[in-house]
């Protein structure tokens, strides 16, 4: 990957911010530790120096310069690991007493606190922390402590902090870049897939690695969404093809007929009426298609309310009983009362009408149609069982699709959209539609959830 592209990514920018914040807190931590260790030792040293200066100033006040020189000489001889350093000079900086050979050039104002190095008798350089005061007229006194240990600690500490901070930063940077790169790689993969889909290849899917993290969840959801879109598109394409295929025939026939009529001197009224009937049938097919599409789009859902399916079933049976009797079919109904579903009254009535219409159409004279509505705990089951020829098991799923008509049904009037609408209505009501064998005949089972308000 090109670096500028990496720098532009949000993951990398977040990593940088993270490194910055992390670094700042590490530095703050080191400063605190320094203040509470090295600072503490320094303050202790300073207190000792201060105490000595106070003592020596008192000596001068009581015993004058001679006494001071004596005390200094006495103290210089005292043994100890961390030696005290003294130097008393006159106004020309000539040493009068003390264990320092020369006045260090760093001091020029009295009261100052300065660190310097001097070379002791053994020739080693020794770090010293010291303070000066003015004594009497023109004399100056330097009091200090050797700070070998403190200097050692300081040195070790600063080396440790430099290494520590740099190492922390390096690790944070490497970690950030690694995390960023991996996230970047997965997002790039997602982007690549979406670009391919935009380019028209809807079969592409985001690779799933099985890591169960949020990237995985995203990939999973995107794939699920794509599946849905692909299914819808396929359905749409299929519908489009079907419409083109199934409506072209009748339209062509209608056109031919009109063409023949136009050529006639005196077109007969019946021919014109037949053309009208044909175009009405075409319009009915279009309306049915439109209705299925609107049902599937969920357009009716906003108008859903509690409806009494028992009443609808009773009404529709009532509507069809006369038709059935005319065809010498016995229509019996066993309808449980007050089965309430949450839905659209007209759609449910239309669906039941379609089911009964099919049953009446395909049941031979002398046959039976049984409509049964039963209430179960959470479901309402409505079955329409006929004693017609039934539908072979292999075709049962297929006949639910639009324009699906079995060969033996071609002789009957119909547009092949009846069951498709029933299924669309069932699905929109969170129910389902099943076809089973009535041996002989067909059982259509419409299962709907009981309204939650019931």
């Amino acid at each position, binding site marked *: 990957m090109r670096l500028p592209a990496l720098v532009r990514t949000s993951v990398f920018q977040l990593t940088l911010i993270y490194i910055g914040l992390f670094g700042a807190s590490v530095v703050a931590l080191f400063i605190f530790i320094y203040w509470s260790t090295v600072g503490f030792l320094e303050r202790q040293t300073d207190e000792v120096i201060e105490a000595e200066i106070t003592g020596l100033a008192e000596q001068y006040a009581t015993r004058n310069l001679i006494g001071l020189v004596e005390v200094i000489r006495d103290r210089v001889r005292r043994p100890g690991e961390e030696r005290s350093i003294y130097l008393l000079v006159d106004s020309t900086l000539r040493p009068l007493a003390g264990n320092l050979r020369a006045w260090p050039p760093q001091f020029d104002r009295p009261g100052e606190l300065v660190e310097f190095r001097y070379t002791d008798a053994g020739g080693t350089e020794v770090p010293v922390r010291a303070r000066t005061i003015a004594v009497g007229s023109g004399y100056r006194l330097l009091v200090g402590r050797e700070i070998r240990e403190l200097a050692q600690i300081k040195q070790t500490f600063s080396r440790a902090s430099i290494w520590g901070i740099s190492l922390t930063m390096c690790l944070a940077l490497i970690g950030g870049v690694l995390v960023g790169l991996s996230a970047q790689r997965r997002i790039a993969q997602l982007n690549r897939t979406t670009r391919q889909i935009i380019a028209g290849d809807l079969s592409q899917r985001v690779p799933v690695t099985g890591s169960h993290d949020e990237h995985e969840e995203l990939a999973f959801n995107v794939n699920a969404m794509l599946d849905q879109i692909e299914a819808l598109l396929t359905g749409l394409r299929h519908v489009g093809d079907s419409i083109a295929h199934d409506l072209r025939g009748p339209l062509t026939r209608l056109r031919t007929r009109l063409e023949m009529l136009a050529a006639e001197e005196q077109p007969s009224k019946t021919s014109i*009426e037949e053309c009208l009937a044909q175009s009405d049938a075409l319009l009915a097919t279009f*309306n049915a298609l*439109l209705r299925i599409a609107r049902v599937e789009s969920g*357009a*009716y859902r906003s108008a859903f309310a509690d409806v009494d399916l028992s009443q609808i079933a009773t009404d529709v049976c009532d509507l069809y009983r*006369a038709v059935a009797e005319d065809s010498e079919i016995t229509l019996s109904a066993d309808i449980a009362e007050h089965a309430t579903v949450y839905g659209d009254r*007209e759609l449910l*009535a*239309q669906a039941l009408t379609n089911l009964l219409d099919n049953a009446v159409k395909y049941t031979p004279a002398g046959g039976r149609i049984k409509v049964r509505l039963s209430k179960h705990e959470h479901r309402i089951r409505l079955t329409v069982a006929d004693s017609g020829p039934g539908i072979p098991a292999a075709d049962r799923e297929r006949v639910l699709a639009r324009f699906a008509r079995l060969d033996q049904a071609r002789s009957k009037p119909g547009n092949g959209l009846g069951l498709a609408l029933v299924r669309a209505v069932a699905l929109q009501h969170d129910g389902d539609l099943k076809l089973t064998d009535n041996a002989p005949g067909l059982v259509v089972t419409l299962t709907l959830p009981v309204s939650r308000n019931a």
Partner: protein
Amino acid sequence: MRVLIIEDDKDVASFVQKGLTQAGWNVDHASDGKDGLFLATTESYDALVVDRMLPGIDGLTVIRTLRASSNTTPVLVLSALGEVDDRVKGLKAGGDDYLVKPFAFSELMARLEALVRRAGAGSGTPATVLQVADLRLDLLRREVQRADKPIDLQPREFQLLEFLMRHAGQVVTRTMLLEGVWDYHFDPQTNVIDVHISRLRSKIDKGFDRPLLHTVRGAGYRLDA
């Protein structure tokens, strides 16, 4: 009869205008909501045919405005939307009936006639006895007689006859019957309504010289002396 068509689709408007003129109606046409509203408020009509989708002021607003100014002229709403909730919206806005495009002219004609008739009947005490020629229907006693001979009808047949008698002399379409008698608003399939009519016909016309229940080809039925 004087009717105003508010419809922006020229083909539909001229088709309706032509048909209604042939039927002897006096037809005015407005092609947008503003002109339509102007005509409807300044002129007096027996009925209005209003398309829902109009340029400028939409059809439902036209109807609402008319109703707000106490104009009670019956309105037939036309719509290409054709769905149940749309129907409810159209009727709520103050429309009296609703017709979905594309429609057969006979359907429009039948509905328009029913509207005008209903408006003409006005208020007053509702009839408890309906009579067409020698056919008598008593709403209170739930009895039907023809030439003083009692006729036994199923409850649904009784409702069907009542609807036909209330629209006596007018063409009543199958859709109107499904709406008026069964209260469902979808296209009745195949011949369900026809079967009910033929049963009713066999009860009220069989054995009488003069049939009362006529089939109007390509449109529906008419109960007439």
